[in-house]
């Protein structure tokens, strides 16, 4: 990584953080738990980094570390989206007959 890449990284980080701050401040209290589950699932995008390592063929140890990282991130992606959807499905405006 060189200093140009670092600079671009900071631009991206700052813009994303600003966007996130603006938007997340508007999420109602009602949806705070789904919000946590959602951002958790989205942060599972670290899967992208672990895939490259697990598929990289850089020796057994690194492959195993990569595979564990893939598994941990996948748990968050799969479980995170499933549970967010389960929660959001429950929020209903009008009473429905059970």
């Amino acid at each position, binding site marked *: 990584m060189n200093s140009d890449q670092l600079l671009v990284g900071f631009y991206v980080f700052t813009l994303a953080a600003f966007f996130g701050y603006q938007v997340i401040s508007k999420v109602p209290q009602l949806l705070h738990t789904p919000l*946590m589950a959602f951002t958790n699932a*989205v942060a599972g*995008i670290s899967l*992208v980094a672990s895939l490259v390592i697990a598929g990289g063929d850089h020796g057994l140890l690194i492959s195993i570390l990569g595979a564990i990282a893939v598994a941990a991130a996948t748990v968050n992606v799969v479980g995170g989206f499933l549970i967010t959807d389960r929660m959001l499905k429950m929020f209903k405006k009008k009473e429905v007959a059970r």
Partner: protein
Amino acid sequence: MSPEIKLWIFRGALFVASCLFLLGLRALTSAETARRGMWMAAIGMALGVAGTLLHKDVVSYHWIAIGLVVGTVIGVPMGRWIPMTKMPERIALSHAFGGAAVALVGLAEYLHRGNTLGSFGMGAIGFEVVMGAVTFTGSLVAFGKLQGTISGKPLGFRGGHLLNAILAVACLTGIAILIARPEQTVVFYGVIALSAVLGVLLVLPIGGADMPVIICLLNAYAGLAASASGFALDNQILIICGALDGGSGLILALIMSKAMNRSFRNVLFGGVGAGAAATAGSGEAKPSREASIEDAAELLKIASSVIVVPGYGMAVAQAQHAVRDLAGVLAANGVNVRYAIHPVAGRMPGHMNVLLAEANVPYDQLFELDAINDDFRQTDVTIVVGANDVVNPAAKSSPSSPIFGMPILNADQSKAVIVLKRSQNPGFAGIENELFVQPNTMMVLGDAKHTLGKLSAAVKGSHN
């Protein structure tokens, strides 16, 4: 496919995925559009993963397949079958997985190309590993505390904060050494070990009532770790998602600490409950009025407006369905029933909302503190289900109280109050609650679920 085309497909997929994540998050600002937003993000995730499989460094697929299968096998049950009452534990665990994934990526990157990282890359990986490891062990301790495996009481010791500061400085020093001498593998492992210890020590002194804040903070740490890995790998989508995750954790932590009228510093270093015992003893103990289910039912029969204030006790007793049933019986009698949700009721942000939604309570009956607080005065009966500190008038009237200044729900102003509580013992923080000894307050002791069931039957019976 030429390598050039593959590269652009990879880049394009990640770019589109980033846009879908941002759009998805924006849709989460309203309950009507939230589900659509979630699916946008899920599609973005699928695109990102598919695009990465075309990356030039991905040459074999068996380890990837093993990881994906194992992760899915664990992830599906965690998403589908974990009961809503276990949501705080579930969230804490997912922070642990997130931290572990990022820390492992950092470790593998270091082992793979430690000497060619350059000082910025080494610094980013160092930060990534420290945050990842702190999040991992800290979240496991939080999980243990929520489960009850580890005591929910603040477990601090004299000099604990100093020790934490020393550990943090040691980690930073380790990173600095690695930037100068990246081949010092021992230092790298040492930094991981120290960070893991730091994570444990940071969360152990946090008491149960402060859990909402620490869960949000761990969320923020997990996000920052992911962002750091984006810097290390020069991968923009990781930086973006990490910033969103970290930002949301930080904002929620701020909302939570504001709702408790506490500063971050106070939550992290204070340990509520430690100083509370001294003030609790002052003033003679006034008796509270214990009432039978029949008394409470009589009161509810003549009421025309009712506000329900749920708290952690409702989650513990799993009484959300029983609450809804009683509300249904009351509504059938023409009573206006609403719910007042304090921001820190429960063990995580939005805890009560999710439980009530699970019990089929429509969300337009759930009101935030500011929206409903002026209405208590005109309300006939407030039913407090397992809440304590969030309705304690001492927060307004008694400057010596540890919770003084915290915004509370004005349950004490309603014409009558019914408090459902497991026992006469003071709440978690050991603070006496004036509300419980007010002349217009009835205490109905016992398991909330059981009591609510009987109350529903008693109110219903009289109308047939």
